[in-house]
């Protein structure tokens, strides 16, 4: 797999790809309980693993300030799952950590999202609660950060006034 910046070029990206990217990003950050509705809504999804679920390391790269020279920040444990539905849709998931079952459920969610008949249900039953939780968490962090905000100002200094 070749490294590339994310997103490569948001303007030129087809909406379908962007929508799937969003869905995959949400299930990748889901908690295991948030993926449980899959078993309730689609008990007979029949997905099978195209490759055994496996954990590995990925190198995280960073840039200072967004435009500095790239450097290797460190490695993160990632678990990957690839599943296929009986109707042929292939679902992929990469999640942080070693939870193989969560990775498998996330991949199934991706595959079900690809299928037109089940996409709406995936959006409402799985993606919407995750998006709501992430938005609430982000808002809380912002509020906590805002509470500690200090406004600095500089008094007119003597030598400048003189």
């Amino acid at each position, binding site marked *: 797999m070749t490294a590339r910046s994310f997103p490569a070029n948001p303007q030129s990206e087809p909406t379908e790809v962007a929508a799937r990217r969003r869905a995959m990003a949400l299930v990748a950050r889901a908690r295991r309980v948030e993926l449980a509705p899959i078993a309730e809504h689609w008990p007979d999804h029949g997905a099978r693993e*195209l*490759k*055994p679920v496996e954990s590995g390391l990925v190198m995280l790269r960073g840039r200072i300030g967004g435009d500095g020279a790239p450097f290797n920040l460190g490695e993160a444990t990632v678990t990957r799952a690839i599943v*296929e539905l*009986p109707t*042929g849709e*292939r679902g992929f998931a990469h999640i942080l950590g070693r939870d193989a079952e969560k990775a498998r459920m996330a991949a199934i969610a991706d595959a079900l999202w690809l299928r037109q008949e089940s996409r709406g249900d995936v959006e409402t039953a799985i993606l919407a609660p995750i998006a709501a939780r992430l938005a609430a968490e982000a808002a809380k962090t912002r509020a906590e950060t805002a509470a500690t905000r200090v406004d600095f100002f500089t008094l007119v200094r003597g030598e400048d006034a003189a």
Partner: protein
Amino acid sequence: MSALAFADPTFESQVAFRVIMRALSAPGTILSCGNALAPPAPLAAAAAAVLLTLADFETPLWIAPSFPQTVGDYLAFHTGAPRSAAPDKAAFALVDLSADGLDLRRFASGTAEYPDRSTTIVAQASTLEASSRLRLSGPGLKGEATLAVSPLPTDFIAQWAANHTGFPLGVDLILVADARLAALPRSTAIAEGAR
């Protein structure tokens, strides 16, 4: 439904690696490999096992035009190996002896500085037997070994002689039929027929 690869990639690829290494160190020995695999037709199980074990994202793979798209997709998905457009740029090549024939000169034989930058050819035969059509000798063999491969191009002995005399340059050949394989490394000399 897409075809699956090794169920337990770590251990099954280690088993296959051991078989390939034994085949290359004792040229002409016919060994069983890839019994558990069911790759898309017409890819042989042993050919799939060899490529799933050895090919990865750093080894360009050239697939002969006789193989359908399904075989290319299967290998790309499970190995991540990039497709090579030219056979002489490939680290591995997959050919079908019945449909494509075999011309060893088309493939990379390495450079004097890096003889390892050569193509390892995985060639699918219809039959592979230990009878006396080819007489093998060289490193790894006490005396001579015998191997019969069918079909082979009529000038195979001459092609191989040119490949062998270029040592340490040259291509290595892994012959497969269904779930069996035998290897002919460039160090092996081949003579024709029964003595």
